[in-house]
């Protein structure tokens, strides 16, 4: 099992450009999440999904859109990138609530720089 994978690993954008980050998991997890990590801020939840075809806003959703067309994939889109979106983005997945061993499994991250 590859676990949670993220594509790409690094990206540099110019202000106003758009891009999509792809997250894939092969663990048949129901829930998927997108976080951003900034210095001194910890990880903050951008959007999440509780199942195929569903999405919901997290703590910092502005400027981002997401889609979960397939259970194993969760896409994060930036329609018009801004320097404030320079960050490291982590995707995570978890099985489903109510299971004592359930936890979130993270991908390796995507480092995005917006100039």
């Amino acid at each position: 099992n590859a676990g949670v994978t993220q594509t790409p690993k690094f990206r540099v954008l110019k202000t106003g450009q758009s891009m999509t980050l792809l997250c894939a998991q092969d663990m048949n997890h129901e829930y998927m999440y997108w976080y951003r990590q900034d210095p001194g801020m910890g990880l903050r939840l951008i959007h999440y999904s509780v199942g195929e075809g569903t999405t919901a806003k997290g703590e910092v959703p502005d400027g981002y859109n997401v889609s979960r067309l397939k259970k194993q994939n969760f896409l994060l889109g930036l329609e018009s990138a801004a320097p404030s979106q320079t960050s490291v983005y982590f995707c995570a997945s978890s099985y489903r609530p109510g299971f004592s061993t359930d936890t979130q499994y993270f991908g390796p991250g995507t480092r995005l720089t917006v100039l």
Partner: protein
Amino acid sequence: DQQVKQNSPSLSVQEGRISILNCDYTNSMFDYFLWYKKYPAEGPTFLISISSIKDKNEDGRFTVFLNKSAKHLSLHIVPSQPGDSAVYFCAASERFTNFGNEKLTFGTGTRLTIIP
């Protein structure tokens, strides 16, 4: 408003000694707490968790203590090893009070350095 706080950005400990990482929270609805470990250029990995019905959970060298009245938890690593050098994040959720809510609120992290 930072609901989960890790007030020590860094900590250095001699190999073989005990490492104690602290975390405070303000949201009384949190009922499930986790510690994640993160190496550079990797995603966080789950380390240990504790639910609010317990005050201690142990897994090998790692023990998490929860003091609900003080809204404080700590992670003890005994004995500390060089491979423990990493950033440790404390996280909390309303897993049981808000069933189905798997959202985690993270602290800002503590960088632990184990000195050989």
